């Protein structure tokens, strides 16, 4: 199909609002009668709450509502309902909400917090997930078995194990017997903060007569949050309404309720007045969510010629105090620790252990960052030991079309080898190394990633065409900053045959927009794009049917492009507007609805009982990185990143580049600069001066390279691109450091201290 918009870098639909300062984010929402909230948080990592006295706070100036866990005895959690809105009988991390205040001003709310008295009895706490798994460790959730949970995941009652899964293929012992060399390495990847520039925030309003809640939020999945909140409160979905604002960054961190439940708790008692809660930066860094830290042991059997015989993995994930989406992170992460390679025998074990810390959540990459760190670091170790070039060994084992994933799913549109070759070419792989410049030594490293998308999931939308030819696209996909509105409008414009400028994409309102599983898992373009395509085709067909009646011809003989109808009997080309004016003299609407789910797609076929592990599309990418290490200071500088991605089809190339370039920055920032400093569960560096992010001064040369493989079920061939790019950056940097100075860093972050210590040990 010829496209006018798909494949072009049209400017963002939300661009004008954003460069003029008019875009409304959650922190900008102002409503009449609004109250402002503040939250009292636990100073202890693990303690029993013996009593809370709020009487003085309730009498403080400006205060309208004070709530504690007793007032809102609800729990939430998409996979295990283990998290209270506010702590009830105990606190499980430093920063856990214990009481909340709504007042006429934020200052009065903050002042009132000091008047709340809480009596605690401290309990032993556990901060290391490996210790949390040992007998006799303090148990965070003695009632774990009683919680409502999704039954596909296993817990171990009476322990801190909130998820344990094993996955085997073939016979791993046999695989190790066949191996010429066995590699056994331990890796650690640290927790990092999502650090969206817009902290978590929510505005909630309660309508007592209807027992209904409206929540303004920049969440990445308004329908899923609405479903979860309705479930917690025991109300129907028409009593919970989420209204999306623009989002000042999410990266997975806005994939669970954080500020929302606290604003709702206060709004329930505020006599209809809306309540706004904006997290401070300190709260964002200490009491929202993190990327899960993980300890990974990886045992791999290899033939001397560089082929795999077996892989065994044992992963322990640091859950923090509550499950959030960690269960799925730990499960899906485990499944990609095989990397994008053919391995005949595998045995994978994943355990997620509660600890007395801020909880981990979804983080761009959803488990693949953690496992790719181990998989791709070890791949480099293997290559060097076997004397095979790191690029060659990857090419030798790389998945190609027709290969089977570990559940037997046949892989299609696998652009992995092209990403390896393109990234290698761009970085000048194999070129002679430049001479060290004093103490500065250069090196080059490479790493790849395989990433599935959550499957199956659903996207619904509808398209409304009014009599004047203008179009509104109602989808449940929020604009989290990745260009969702623009991409969906491009697909709609080409499918219907109308100008892009005639399409409006409002922010999501769950009272109006139909269900969508959210912008997680790089799924939005593929899933919602397909729903939009289906809805757009219905609208187009109806337009052509109407036009055919008017023009006294058959719909099949007409076509529509840019709002002009051409074909037999259309004469010089009638406009869509004139056809609609004739059909709807008093006004009228054409509605087209679309639903896409990959459920039942033949592409998902796999070994019996293992179909749930299939992904409707697989993303592949390779980053080749050149770095410079200063052997005197230990400082690593990233010079160039060649980032090649199999995107299926770039619906909007500039938006794809943004995702790739942005996650390269995020990946290098995570790997080199970011680290929580803690003492007894308390985060000591809760400011952006002390929790370091990459700045513009750290920007390397980034060359995004897009490989188009045209997925057969993707809208116009598209897959996804937002998530995988964060994963290969860290191992490619570590591999480049090895290339430069011969030291192997196995635990993140890669700090100058670790480099110097490793150099010292080597000497």
């Amino acid at each position, binding site marked *: 199909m010829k496209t006018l918009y798909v494949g072009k870098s049209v*400017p963002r639909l939300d661009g004008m*609002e954003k*460069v003029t*300062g008019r875009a409304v984010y959650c*922190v900008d929402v102002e409503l009449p009668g609004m109250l402002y909230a503040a939250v009292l948080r636990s100073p202890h990592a693990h303690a029993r709450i013996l009593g809370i006295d709020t009487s003085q706070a309730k009498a403080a100036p400006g205060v309208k509502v004070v709530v504690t866990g007793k007032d809102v005895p609800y729990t939430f959690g998409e996979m295990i309902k283990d998290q209270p809105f506010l702590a009830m009988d105990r606190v499980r991390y430093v920063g856990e909400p214990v009481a909340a205040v709504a007042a006429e001003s934020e200052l009065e709310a903050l002042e009132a917090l000091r008047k709340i008295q809480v009596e605690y009895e401290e309990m032993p706490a556990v901060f290391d997930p490996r210790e949390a798994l040992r007998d006799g460790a303090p148990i965070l959730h003695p009632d774990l078995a009683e919680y409502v949970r999704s039954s596909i995941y296993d817990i171990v009652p009476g322990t801190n194990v909130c998820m344990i899964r094993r996955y085997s293929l073939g016979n791993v012992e046999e695989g190790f017997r066949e191996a010429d060399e066995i590699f056994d390495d331990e890796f650690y990847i640290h927790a990092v903060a999502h650090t969206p520039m*817009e902290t978590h925030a929510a505005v909630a309003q309660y309508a007592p007569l209807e027992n209904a809640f409206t929540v303004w939020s920049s969440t990445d999945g308004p329908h899923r949050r609405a479903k979860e909140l309705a479930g917690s409160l025991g109300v129907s979905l028409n009593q919970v309404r989420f209204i999306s604002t623009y989002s000042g*960054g999410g990266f997975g961190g806005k994939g669970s309720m954080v500020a929302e439940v606290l604003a709702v708790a206060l709004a329930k008692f505020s006599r209809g007045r809306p309540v706004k809660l904006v997290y401070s930066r300190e709260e964002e860094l200490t009491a929202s969510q993190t990327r899960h830290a993980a300890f990974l042991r990886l045992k791999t059997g290899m033939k001397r010629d560089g082929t795999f015989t077996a892989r065994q993995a044992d992963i322990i994930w640091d859950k923090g105090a509550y499950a959030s989406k960690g269960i799925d992170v730990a499960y899906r992460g485990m499944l990609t620790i095989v990397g994008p390679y053919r391995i005949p025998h595998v045995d994978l074990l994943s355990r997620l252990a509660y600890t007395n810390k801020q909880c981990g959540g979804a983080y761009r990459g959803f488990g693949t960052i953690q496992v790719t760190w181990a998989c791709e670091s070890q791949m480099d170790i293997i290559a060097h030991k076997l004397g095979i070039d790191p690029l060659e060994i990857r090419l030798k084992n790389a998945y190609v079309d027709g290969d089977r994933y570990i559940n037997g799913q046949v892989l299609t549109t696998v652009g992995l080898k092209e990403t390896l070759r393109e990234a290698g070419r761009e970085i000048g792989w194999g070129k002679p190394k430049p001479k060290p410049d004093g103490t500065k030594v250069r090196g080059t490293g490479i790493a790849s990633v395989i990433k599935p998308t959550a499957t199956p999931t659903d996207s619904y939308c509808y398209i409304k065409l009014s009599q004047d030819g203008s179009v509104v696209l109602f989808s449940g996909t929020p604009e989290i900053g990745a260009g969702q509105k623009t991409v969906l409008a491009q697909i709609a414009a080409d499918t219907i045959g109308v100008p892009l400028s005639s399409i409006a994409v409002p922010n999501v309102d769950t009272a109006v927009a139909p269900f969508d599983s959210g912008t997680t898992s790089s799924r939005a373009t593929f899933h919602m794009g397909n729903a939009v395509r289906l809805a757009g085709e219905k609208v187009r067909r109806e337009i052509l049917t109407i036009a055919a009646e008017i023009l006294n011809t058959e719909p099949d003989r007409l076509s529509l492009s840019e709002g002009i109808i051409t074909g037999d009997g259309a004469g010089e080309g009638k406009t869509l507007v004139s056809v609609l004016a004739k059909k709807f003299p008093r006004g009228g609407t054409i509605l087209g609805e679309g639903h896409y789910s990959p459920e039942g797609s033949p592409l998902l076929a796999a070994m019996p009982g293992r179909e749930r592990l299939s992904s409707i599309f697989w993303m592949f990418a390779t980053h080749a990185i050149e770095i410079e290490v200063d052997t005197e200071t230990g400082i690593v500088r990233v010079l160039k990143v060649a980032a090649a991605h199999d995107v299926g089809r770039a619906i909007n190339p500039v938006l794809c580049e943004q995702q790739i*370039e942005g996650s390269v920055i995020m990946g290098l920032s995570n790997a080199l600069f970011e680290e929580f400093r803690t003492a007894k569960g308390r985060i000591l560096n809760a400011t952006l001066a002390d929790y370091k992010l990459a700045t*513009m001064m750290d920007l390397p040369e980034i060359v995004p390279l897009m490989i188009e493989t045209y997925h057969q079920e993707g809208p116009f061939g598209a897959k996804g691109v937002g998530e995988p790019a964060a994963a290969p950056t860290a191992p490619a940097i570590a591999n480049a450091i090895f290339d430069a100075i011969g030291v192997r860093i196995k635990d993140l972050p890669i700090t100058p201290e670790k480099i110097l210590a490793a150099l010292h040990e080597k000497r």
Partner: protein
Amino acid sequence: MKVPIKLLVNGEPHQLEVAPNETLVELLRERLHLTGTKEGCGVGDCGTCIVLLEGIPVNSCLVLAVDANGRHVATIEGLGDERKLHPLQESYLEKGAVQCGFCTPGMIMSGKALLDQNPAAGEDEIRRALSGVLCRCGAYKKIVEAVKAAGEKMQGAR
């Protein structure tokens, strides 16, 4: 206790009474409803609240409202609108420098302060001038390109 102050915001005169501890970002956002300026940390680390005070970029969370008395403040709202965009805003759109957009006002105002002084600023100067604003989307590459392109436009217009 409130203190009377007068200031010009985007060329418009305002007369207000402010608390001694009120910050400029609070005044702009809460009193004047100019919410284009964002507050990302409140302690001067992130740069999303940068506005121009007498043409100089400042973290408006670190400036007390009383200290803006008698001075000119420029915010993103005064820069341009869809009828007439500033070259920086135009280049931002053309080069794809916007992602989530939350740091965009601070970045653009920092860029304006630089280009007003030196529209021929090179990449190193641009990076230094904008390094006080954090962007977690990591849009740095295209932001540098946009500022460079805007500088070229401004030079051409001279």
